[in-house]
């Protein structure tokens, strides 16, 4: 292993390859900030460049730089503008945006950069150690387990059920699931609930919905009630994180790197579920006073999804490199690039061409490191976006939401849907309905129904729930995650009442 490491390091540290990774990180970061262009599309765009280089290691190093840069770029728009462009960064906006609103934009970006770095790096270490062994575990997960895993992911909504608002959160989740059923399902290929409108045949676009639920209502609130985006004194304060904060998020980063990595290993589960689950788990195990901070700008609530998301991205390389199975859209595109470069990932890769395997791993380390070094000095400038005068910034935010929805679909109807949903979301926000559960339900709904349907077909009924212990275990875990917070709240209330009587 040491020998392989050194070979990889030697390849990756040549001047040409270092320039590649720097270029990749910069391109990825800047394009990734545009909503609508996630890592997947940016890598797809970069593939012609990478293939024309001819050297598989250099190409992979460039693509890894682009990949990590794009993930970080996506986080910046969800933290600064509440406009998550990729499903995996939705959870980052839950706490990142409130932090930016409190004038801690610089600190939020720093935490995101450090958490991403740690998640990616620890993920790469785990990949190095466990890749061969894990490939067999990933195959143990069948449709029933995936279904159960989605249900566990849905339990993240409990975090948004404020005191006494559980029903609202559930109703919003159901609404999200309902919206996910619009269009053609993968399993039946029948258009459902399209009301005969052609544009709905492929369902609602994720970015349209994300922009309508998060960015648009925020922008409208800023118009309705002008407020300084930079917090009280207009200064970007607290760029650095204090030692105390570092100590607070260190265990979160440690736990979420491991958890995120293992979720990422499962083909199809990926970064989105890892980030939601990471958020839910960290919230549940946090002490009571910190739990109330979640959703209002908790550093733990930002570090958890950022770490998990990056670790899961790294984890998704396990099935790609060991089995040749791409577990996510991004790795599928990478698989295409590798094949075009005459490298076939699969069980033979580590035997036949170990230098490629190690070059991939080294490129992950270097990509993460370069990203951290490049971005930490850039953060004050990125955060300056919020210092743009409001009269200019708001039209730009609105324009970005429109562009995000338009680039993905190239369809002007999508923009009308965006405005319509944006108005509805603003009304829901007025009435204190949490909007995040709707988006979570929508993202997980499609995958959940597909896996549920597949398990139903395989087992000819719902018997898979009790005949597969892992499924049952995951479903019980989900129930506990939903019920525990409200049970705790009730107990705390009862105790408080008891004290009052005693006095």
């Amino acid at each position, binding site marked *: 292993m040491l020998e392989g490491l050194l070979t990889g390091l030697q390849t990756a540290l040549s001047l040409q390859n270092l320039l590649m990774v720097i270029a990749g990180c910069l391109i990825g970061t800047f*394009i990734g900030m545009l909503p609508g*262009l996630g890592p997947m599309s940016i890598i797809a*765009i970069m593939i012609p460049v990478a293939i024309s280089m001819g050297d598989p290691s250099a190409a992979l190093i460039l693509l890894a730089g682009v990949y990590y840069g794009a993930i970080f770029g996506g986080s910046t728009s969800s933290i600064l503008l509440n406009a998550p462009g990729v499903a995996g960064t939705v959870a980052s906006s839950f706490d990142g945006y409130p932090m930016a609103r409190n004038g801690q934009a610089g600190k939020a970006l720093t935490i995101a950069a450090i958490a991403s770095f740690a998640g990616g790096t620890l993920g790469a270490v785990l990949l190095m150690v466990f890749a061969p062994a894990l490939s067999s575990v990933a195959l143990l997960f069948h449709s029933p387990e995936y279904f159960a895993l989605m249900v566990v992911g849905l339990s993240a909504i409990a975090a948004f059920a*404020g*005191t*006494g*608002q559980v*029903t*609202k959160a*559930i*109703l919003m989740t*159901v*609404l999200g*699931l*309902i919206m996910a*059923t619009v269009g053609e*399902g993968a399993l*039946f290929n029948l258009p*459902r*609930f399209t009301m005969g409108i052609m544009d709905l045949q492929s369902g609602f676009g994720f970015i349209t919905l994300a922009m309508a639920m998060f960015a648009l209502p925020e922008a*409208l*609130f800023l*118009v*309705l*009630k*002008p407020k300084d985006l930079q917090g009280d004194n207009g200064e970007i304060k607290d760029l650095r994180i204090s030692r105390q904060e570092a100590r607070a998020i260190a265990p979160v980063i440690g736990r979420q790197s491991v958890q995120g990595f293992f979720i990422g290993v499962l083909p199809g589960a990926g970064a989105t579920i890892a980030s939601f689950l990471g958020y839910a788990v960290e919230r549940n195990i946090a002490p009571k006073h910190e739990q109330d901070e979640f959703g209002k700008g908790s550093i733990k609530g930002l570090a958890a999804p950022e770490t998990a998301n990056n670790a899961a991205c790294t984890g998704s390389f396990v099935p790609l490199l060991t089995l040749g199975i791409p577990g996510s859209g991004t790795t599928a595109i990478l698989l295409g690039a590798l094949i075009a470069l005459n490298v076939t990932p699969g069980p033979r890769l580590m035997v036949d061409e170990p230098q490629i395997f190690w070059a991939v791993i080294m490129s992950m380390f270097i990509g993460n490191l370069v990203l951290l070094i490049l971005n930490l000095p850039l953060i004050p400038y990125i955060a300056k976006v919020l210092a743009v*005068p*409001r*009269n*200019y910034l*708001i*039209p*730009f935010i*609105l*324009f970005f939401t*429109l*562009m995000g929805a*338009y*680039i993905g679909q*190239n369809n*002007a*109807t999508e*923009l*009308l849907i*965006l*405005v319509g949903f944006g*108005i509805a979301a603003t*009304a*829901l926000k*007025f*009435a*204190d*309905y949490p909007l995040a559960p709707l988006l979570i339900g929508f993202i997980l709904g499609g995958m959940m*129904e597909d896996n*549920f*349907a597949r398990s*139903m*077909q395989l087992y*000819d*009924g719902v018997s898979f729930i009790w005949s597969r212990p892992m499924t049952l275990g995951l479903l019980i875990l989900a129930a506990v995650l939903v019920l525990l917070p409200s049970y705790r709240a009730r107990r705390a209330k009862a105790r408080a009442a008891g004290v009052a009587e005693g006095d």
Partner: protein
Amino acid sequence: MALDRWIALMLLGVCMVYGYTAWFTMDSSLAPFMQRNPIWPSTFPKVLSIIGMACALFILLGFEQAEEKEKDIDYRRLWEYHLGQAVMLLALMVAYALCLRPLGFLGSTTAFLFLGAFILGERKYVTMLIIALIAAGSIWYLVQEVLGIYMRPFPGFIGG
């Protein structure tokens, strides 16, 4: 009745329409071989419609007492805020959606950014115009030329 209960009423209506479609209209068009499946396209929606209706009723009938919190914006006094600006910006977005194809990307985006700033009360026309032009031009260049995603730059009649 408070706004959240009005919304619950509306969502109840949505769930009922959705449920009606799922329970009574979808199964008849199912092909015979699909009817032997343990799960139908309508199975999941049927379950969802029932949960949705239950939750909406729960909120509508006021079983759940939410704690009164201090809110950012009180919708009962909406007209005290800059409601006009918000409505005009929304109208501008709709206009943008309708003009994007016929007017081309460059023209409609420049107009959108210019008018957006105008609605918000900016009056430095030259600065606004320059910023809008630079932004529209550079984003179009990035998306069309660098990334290769097609955007019609000019109105159709100039061959954009």
